[in-house]
């Protein structure tokens, strides 16, 4: 069991970067031509979007590795990446709604990216729910890996079908379409959330590994009778 301080270092670095980038973005970066100060939400929203996608892609990779190698370590990482990815995607939806109100004039619109992100929250969140209801660690690992692969394959189909159905969101921003003055706060915050994500995923992986250890080697009944695996499953 790794007990290094690396995740804490990552999180500490992340907090420093996020404070730096956000202060820059909120107080020193210029306002946008038309959106004015509201555009400052971008420094939180866009890095969250990038990293949510990154976390869920990592979950997909973990699922493939878990199916291929059948190692519990990959299942632990899968659980961690899924949870962090779902939290970031849910956060992304909320930030998006807050940004949409002053710019588009509505809180929500059934636009491809909004809808796809919401669908992703539910699709991957459901896999986390599935994990709660399966006691056998091996079955849980296989099933959640299978469900992750299918859900991930579904994301582009959802995106394109919703896009044909309706579209309002602007295309992906690229460095060319964003003024240079906005780049640095965006980059700093992107790396901030990236390090936060890495720290959280590795810490969450340890939680998953510890739980797995408990399940596979239940403690002796006289020392802690409450923690038998069956009781663990019944509680969750």
């Amino acid at each position, binding site marked *: 069991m790794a007990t290094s301080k690396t995740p804490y270092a990552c999180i500490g670095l992340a907090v420093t970067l996020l404070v730096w980038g956000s202060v820059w973005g909120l107080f020193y970066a*210029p*306002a*946008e*031509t*038309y*959106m004015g100060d509201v*555009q400052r939400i*971008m420094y939180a929203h866009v890095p969250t979007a990038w990293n949510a996608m990154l976390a869920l892609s990592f979950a997909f990779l973990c699922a493939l590795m878990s199916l291929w190698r059948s190692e519990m370590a990959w299942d632990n990482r899968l659980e961690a990446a899924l949870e962090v990815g779902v939290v970031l995607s849910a956060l992304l939806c909320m930030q998006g709604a807050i940004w949409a109100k*002053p*710019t*588009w*004039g*509505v809180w929500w*619109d059934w636009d491809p990216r909004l809808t796809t992100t919401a669908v992703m929250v539910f699709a991957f969140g459901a896999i986390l729910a599935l994990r709660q209801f399966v006691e056998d660690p091996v079955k849980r690992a296989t099933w959640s890996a299978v469900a992750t692969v299918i859900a991930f*394959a579904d994301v*582009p*189909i959802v995106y*394109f*079908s919703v*896009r*044909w*159905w*309706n*579209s*309002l969101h*602007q*295309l*992906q*921003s*690229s460095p*060319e*379409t*964003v*003024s*240079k*003055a*906005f780049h640095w706060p965006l980059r700093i915050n992107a790396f901030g959330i990236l390090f936060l994500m890495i720290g959280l995923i590795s810490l969450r992986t340890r939680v998953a590994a510890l739980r797995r250890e408990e399940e596979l080697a239940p403690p002796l009944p006289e020392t802690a009778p409450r923690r038998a695996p069956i009781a663990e499953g019944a509680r969750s």
Partner: protein
Amino acid sequence: MSRGRWAAIGALVAAGAALLAITAGGIGQNLVYYWGPTELHAAGPKAVGASIRLGGLVAPGSIKKGEGASHVEFDVIDRPGGRVHVKCTGVPPQMFREQIGVVVEGTMDKAGYFDGRRLMVSHSNEYRVPGDGEAVDVQKAMRSTQGLDERPKPKEP
């Protein structure tokens, strides 16, 4: 190689091809997200009473306050040259201005104007400092909102 392995590869290839067809195959090219003014006129009486999303640019110099506190009237134009007069209830978002892409939900009135119930402003994927001299790639800007947002260069400060 065993039969099962071949079947697995075949399945993956089929899935990949179908995924490619959806993402890059242009299946949905004729699915329009909004009706433009030209299409609206072409539809004629069919558009009256049907719930429609009208998309286009706000024509320059056409915005005026309608009767009532929260009414706004403007013309929506599209590239083929169609023009529809829109009467919209509700307070427009602050980004609303001339030459911005809008999507209006509503229906065509018998009197020949578009009765809008919900007005949304479509933003392009560009974020600019006021007076930034960087050239705006019109082609890209047009593509960015499916031809809705022919954004003018930012005004000089």
